[in-house]
């Protein structure tokens, strides 16, 4: 028993410290005055604003386009479904640099689609959103597929036999029961979009106020103004932590409800 405790506790402590010390290192060198002063600099607040707008847009795009696809993958019965699923998961494991190249070859001025478009996509805010959606949407789709699959298909069948058509069945049965999973997936994809760096810098560039999101701003500030980089990093940590706590709350609430419903 004592041996087990030692084996469990010591590595756990090391792991926790490994996470917490670097995060803490950022805050040790920060104080409120410095924080506010740097926040007032354009490189910081423009990046903050841009990150909020683009990551939320990407999350919403992922949710709107990803939900039907996830439903298809969870409920559909067609040939090659396994391959399609792996294809959807691919951007999750792909290095972001590969995504950047792929997007340039697609939406670039001479790209597969880009050559037919009247406007130039690369190095615009739209490119930031495209890059973020590309890498983040699979996180949403994966989670949504799982939560749809968790809903007992017999519940949907029962609903149909009770005279409720499939569209209403989706909204009255499938959606409420898979909502916690969808919300979790949305948060995951939002977090991934917020942190997107590689694909963005390759495909959208690093233009302040246009494509320079928070991670790019850190990268830029590291060369000239370490304190600004610190402030941005601290900002992102707090931001992410708040969202995580919030969703945990909401999820636990709905999971608790779901549990006592089951």
């Amino acid at each position, binding site marked *: 028993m004592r041996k087990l405790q030692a084996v469990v506790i010591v590595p756990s402590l090391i792991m926790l410290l490994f996470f917490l010390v670097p995060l803490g290192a950022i805050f040790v060198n920060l104080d409120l005055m410095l924080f506010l002063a740097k926040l007032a600099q354009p490189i910081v607040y423009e990046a903050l604003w841009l990150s909020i707008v683009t990551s939320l847009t990407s999350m919403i795009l992922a949710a709107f386009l990803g939900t039907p696809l996830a439903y298809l993958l969870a409920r559909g019965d067609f040939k090659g479904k396994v391959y399609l699923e792996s294809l959807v998961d691919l951007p999750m494991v792909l290095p972001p640099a590969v995504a950047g190249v792929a997007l340039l070859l697609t939406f670039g001025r001479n790209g597969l689609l880009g050559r037919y478009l009247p406007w130039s996509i690369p190095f615009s805010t739209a490119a930031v959103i495209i890059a973020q959606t590309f890498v983040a949407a699979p996180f949403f789709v994966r989670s949504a597929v799982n939560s749809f699959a968790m809903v007992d298909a*017999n519940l949907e*069948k*029962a609903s*149909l*036999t009770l005279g*409720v058509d499939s569209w209403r069945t989706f909204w009255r049965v499938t959606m409420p029961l898979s909502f916690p999973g969808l919300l979790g997936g949305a948060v995951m994809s939002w977090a991934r979009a917020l942190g997107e760096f590689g694909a963005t810098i390759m495909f959208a560039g690093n233009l302040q106020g246009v494509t320079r999101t928070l991670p790019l701003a850190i990268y830029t500030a590291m060369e000239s103004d370490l304190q600004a980089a610190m402030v941005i990093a601290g900002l992102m940590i707090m931001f992410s932590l708040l969202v995580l706590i919030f969703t945990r709350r909401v999820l636990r609430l709905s999971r608790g*409800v*779901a*549990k006592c419903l*089951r």
Partner: protein
Amino acid sequence: MLKVNVVKKLGDFFLQVDMEIGRGLTVLLGPSGCGKSSLLNLIAGLLHPDSGDITANGQVFFRSRSGRPQVLPIHRRRVGYVFQYPTLFPHLTVKENILYSTRAKDVPQQELEQLLDILRIKELVDRLPAQISGGQAQRVALARALVSRPQVLLLDEPFSALDNFVRHKLRRDLVKVLKHYNIPAVFVTHDLVEAITLGDKIAVMDEGRILQYDSAHKVFSQPAGRKVARFVGMRNIYTGRVVDVVPRQSVTVKGEKFTVEMDYRPVRIGQRVVFGIRPENVLYLRPERDQRPKENTLEVTIVSVFPQGAQYQLLLRATADVYDVEMLLPRHVVEKRNLKPGDRCRISLPRESLHLIEK
């Protein structure tokens, strides 16, 4: 009136059914995997036949035509469906579940109250499905199906996951509640006892076909064919040839193992037949009392004695086979007489208990 005439390929066999189901409870009895649940799914519209016709009260559910078949969507069929496992919506209360159907608002309050009363779920209406028992959940599911104003009620082994005591109560509730709803109800089960206690009519099914569709009594006492006979517990089955017929009196059959006399049936001399008797109908003749001549007596050797709760199963040998007759005896008889393997005894196959299964 529900009319089903369908063909559907299921795995390695074809479901091929042509039957009319009237009001009252019809039991679909058969081993697992025989296609009985698939038949329910075809009626409900959860599955489509390869070809055929399904109509309820004249309304077409499915009809093959050249080109695309005519299909009525599930939600317009008005079929109540009770699944094997409760499918209550976990995020809704019992009351919300019962009133879930779009047609629930047409049900008068009084009728609703009565239904909740009969099914004993009035006190549960504000609970969530997780807070009620399995038996209660199936009663709620039944209420929910009936409140949707079905023209046909389909029940797919709804009580099989419940314990025996609850199952008995639920059968009674079902029979009671169906008296108020004069609609065809199809009840799928693989449990013989359940089929007999519930069904006005029983359809015995195997490998996608209906083997016999008759009143419960008739299926039980006059099984049509070996498979049905085995399925309804007539485990002593023999082949033989008719050797004598006395019109309106008796038939004598020379079996492969022994010759028996049975009640008159319209058969010809020389005809090959299959006949059988239930193990519980085989008579044990007490050596000291039953000396007067009885029909169809056999001298047998006991091969084995297995306890089965309140009774014993005895396997008996009359010829050189491993065993020829299975007999069920009350516990006290076996224990008082100390019957054990190797003993000799006399048995009788009463002529009224012998049944012709195949002609």
